[in-house]
């Protein structure tokens, strides 16, 4: 028994050498579990009672697996597959079986579930894929498959899966076609070729200006959550930073950041962008982003609670520090300040007054500072419906993630209603169109900085609503620009 566990640990340690840091972390966890006597003790006890080693180990680990499967939290549920992996690996060693997995070219593995180490031992270089009855998009295996580009579908349930035969697996759309006919086969091959050349094509757009098929220029900016991300990025690839999530500063060690820390971080980002605009959002804590010691505990519905600007206006001692740091960094570049969760114009007026007070105080102290336009996020439906009330804002930026969940009354972190949380819902597009028209009437620009802006399938619809500025994750730059180039605004049906 001890020998089999040691051998399994060595197998895992051997795997670790060939892996990136991310994947190695999963294996490191499995090794730590195997090395913990608490895992082995129940099995050893059974063996001393006269139970065979295989059965003892199986029973001990099955109990662990059942415990994780019963967890309420999806993340801990997904750990059940790590425990199954350890169970099976030690069992194979107890039985002396080899665990190398060779897949024929383009084979699709079908089954209930696959363990992370089995996934890693499999050679996917010849175009294999995975079709699972169970599985979850948040499992370690799904994460590994995404990182390696291995096509995978999960949750097939009781669907009829043949042991042998031909299947077509489309991981992008989550479709498995069993026993395809010629028509399906041809369509699939075309899709496959298109997807592959598409990826190359998308990357070729990364460094180019974004222009639609009919020649309309679109500003494509990036969303930044941490200044370190900028080290690997070229400012020439984007039209500025459409969203800096200042929350990154508030999660560091040592509690809330002081004025100097914030000033240094904002200045670094502004200098990176040169004269391109940098939209820094004031602290958007609360909702799904709690900050210890700052956000309210035990709200019955945090998404409808004290979050964003509401929290900043309730905690002026924190907000004032941020406004001072922003005012001090303004001379370093093209700063724009954005306020999250604005619901009533009075909140905007208050924030503006606080910013002006910060400027007056800094000038009185003889500290260098500068003015920056104050704009607002539009994620609260009240603001999206009546933008004309918010003429005090210098610009608008649609927070499509929150706006979608407030418009559809469906949280995207709740799996059971995730399909209702649809940012392409006709009501969303209607609302965005009306917001852009309303903003144009008071001569304000509208941008969008939610995930929808980086989704190729949603970009044409957004541009047709009149949107001319998007802010996307740095990784989505090429893909977004490619989708823009394919959109022809002159032809409503293209």
């Amino acid at each position, binding site marked *: 028994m001890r020998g089999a566990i040691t051998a399994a640990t060595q197998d895992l340690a051997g795997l670790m050498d060939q892996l990136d840091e991310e994947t190695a*972390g999963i294996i490191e966890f499995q090794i730590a*579990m195997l090395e913990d006597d*608490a895992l082995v003790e129940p099995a050893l006890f059974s063996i001393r009672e006269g139970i065979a080693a295989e059965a003892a180990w199986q029973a001990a680990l099955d109990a662990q697996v059942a415990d994780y499967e019963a967890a309420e*939290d999806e993340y801990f549920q997904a*750990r059940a597959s*790590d425990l199954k992996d350890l169970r099976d690996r030690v069992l194979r060693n107890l039985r002396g079986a080899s665990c190398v997995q060779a897949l024929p070219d383009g084979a699709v593995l079908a089954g209930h579930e696959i363990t992370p180490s089995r996934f890693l031992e499999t050679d996917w270089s010849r175009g294999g894929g995975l079709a699972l009855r169970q599985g979850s998009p948040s499992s370690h295996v799904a994460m590994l498959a995404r990182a390696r580009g291995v096509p995978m579908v999960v949750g097939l349930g009781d669907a009829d899966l043949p042991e042998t035969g031909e299947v077509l697996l489309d991981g992008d759309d989550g479709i498995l076609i069993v026993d395809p006919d010629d028509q399906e086969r041809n369509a699939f091959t075309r899709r496959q070729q298109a997807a592959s050349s598409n990826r190359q094509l998308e990357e070729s757009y990364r460094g180019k200006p974004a222009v639609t098929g009919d020649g309309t220029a679109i500003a494509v900016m990036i969303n930044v959550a941490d200044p370190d991300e900028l080290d690997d990025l070229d400012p020439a690839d984007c039209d500025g930073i459409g969203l800096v999530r200042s929350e990154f500063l508030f999660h560091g060690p040592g509690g809330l950041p002081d004025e100097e820390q914030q000033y240094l971080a904002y200045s670094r980002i502004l200098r990176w962008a040169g004269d391109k605009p940098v939209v820094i959002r004031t602290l958007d804590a609360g909702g799904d982003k*709690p900050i210890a010691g700052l956000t309210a505990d035990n709200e019955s519905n945090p998404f409808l609670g004290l979050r964003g600007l509401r929290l900043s206006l309730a905690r002026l001692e924190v907000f004032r520090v941020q406004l001072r740091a922003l005012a001090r960094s303004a001379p370093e570049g093209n700063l724009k300040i954005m306020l999250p969760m604005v619901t009533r114009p009075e909140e905007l007026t208050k924030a503006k007054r606080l910013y002006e007070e910060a400027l007056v105080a800094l000038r009185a102290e003889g500290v260098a500072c500068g003015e920056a336009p104050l704009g607002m996020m539009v994620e609260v439906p009240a603001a999206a419906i009546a933008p004309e009330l918010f003429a005090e804002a210098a610009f608008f930026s649609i927070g499509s993630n929150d706006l979608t969940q407030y418009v559809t009354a469906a949280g995207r972190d709740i799996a059971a209603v995730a399909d209702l949380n649809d940012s392409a819902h006709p009501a969303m597009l209607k609302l965005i169109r009306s917001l852009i028209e309303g903003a144009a009437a008071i001569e304000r620009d509208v941008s969008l900085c939610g995930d929808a802006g980086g989704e190729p399938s949603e970009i044409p619809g957004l541009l047709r609503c009149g949107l001319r500025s998007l802010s996307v994750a740095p990784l989505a730059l090429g893909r977004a620009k490619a989708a823009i180039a394919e959109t022809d605004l002159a032809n409503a049906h293209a």
Partner: protein
Amino acid sequence: MEQASVFMTHEIGLHARPSVKLTKLAKTFTAQIELAIAGAEGPWIDAKSIVKVMAAKAPKDTTLFFRAEGADAAAALAALTALVERDFDEGKADAANA
């Protein structure tokens, strides 16, 4: 007996990688170290056992209670609470992928 508590804000909770880091750090001390998530009254579990720490399934926004007994108990508690306060040294990329 030394005691300490710390509020954990890690995106997922006490998941695989943070648990590995916590137990590995705990094992560098000779003191007997225990962890509780329900409150300062326990139940207490061995903070050096990854199997037990993971089985506690502490979600995010949990207050972790530590107690330790032994020569280096105070240093152990300081190091462990600091690790939790540093969010287990995990960047947001980890949280997004975990």
